[in-house]
């Protein structure tokens, strides 16, 4: 069983585009200062950033919890939002339900979830329409780090 070294939760405000991405930026600095090796850190922050943007774009609010163990980094993202009716479809590259406003921000081109999958060692998305979405991601730390 992996030993938990750090657990911290961050609030994400829905629709606040000015602050969108701040949590992921903070997580990046925090983990870099802890000496997490660059490749794992990079994958983790991409997953965090895409997840954060999804919460900002679609949900009213959300929480991102970072759990660092001696073997991996885990992200748990829970939001209060519209939910995803068809998760398999949402993962298809190019599929998007984004509004013009989201696209003007440079997001909503149907690559977010696939980017998250590509950069995670494990990724689970659970969703209930009308209630919200939960994302669990695990990124293994390089054993030679």
């Amino acid at each position, binding site marked *: 069983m992996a030993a938990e070294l750090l657990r911290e939760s961050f609030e994400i405000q829905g629709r606040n*585009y*000015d602050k*969108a*991405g701040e949590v*992921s*930026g903070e997580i*990046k600095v925090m983990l870099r200062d802890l000496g997490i090796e*660059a490749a794992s850190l*990079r994958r983790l*922050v*991409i997953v965090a*950033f*895409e997840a954060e*943007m999804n919460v900002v774009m679609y949900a009213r609010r959300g929480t991102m919890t970072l759990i660092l163990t001696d073997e991996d980094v885990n992200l748990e993202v829970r939001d209060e939002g519209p939910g995803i009716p068809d998760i398999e479809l949402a993962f298809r590259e190019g599929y998007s339900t984004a509004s013009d406003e989201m696209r003007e*921000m*440079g*997001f909503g*081109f149907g*690559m*977010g979830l*696939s*980017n998250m999958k*590509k950069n995670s060692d494990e990724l689970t998305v659970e969703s209930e329409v009308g209630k919200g979405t939960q994302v669990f991601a695990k990124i293994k730390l390089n054993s030679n780090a």
Partner: protein
Amino acid sequence: MKLAEIKEILQCEVLTGEEDLQIDIYQVVASDGMSEILAFAKSKELMITGLTNIQSIRTADIAGVSAVLYCRGKKPDKKVIEFAKQKRIPVLVTPMVMFDICGILYNKGLKGVS
């Protein structure tokens, strides 16, 4: 290729990072879609985009690119430049359009990331 050389070739104005123009650029990632930048950047590239909001610099920071180049003369707000300065990401702007920029840099030997 040095960033300083790119600055000259593309007639750029440096918005921040004048002190970092001697960094080497080996590859380029160009898009207005931030997820595309995140999907293809492998770190240390030049990022070319027409998107000048705060998300462009956040994406640059998350993706780990070396410098940001805005095309068609679009300049971001002061707070965006300030944020890039804080993250120590050089930001340049050129009057040229994306297609021309990419063509010129490709001819000079730079390649895209795929």
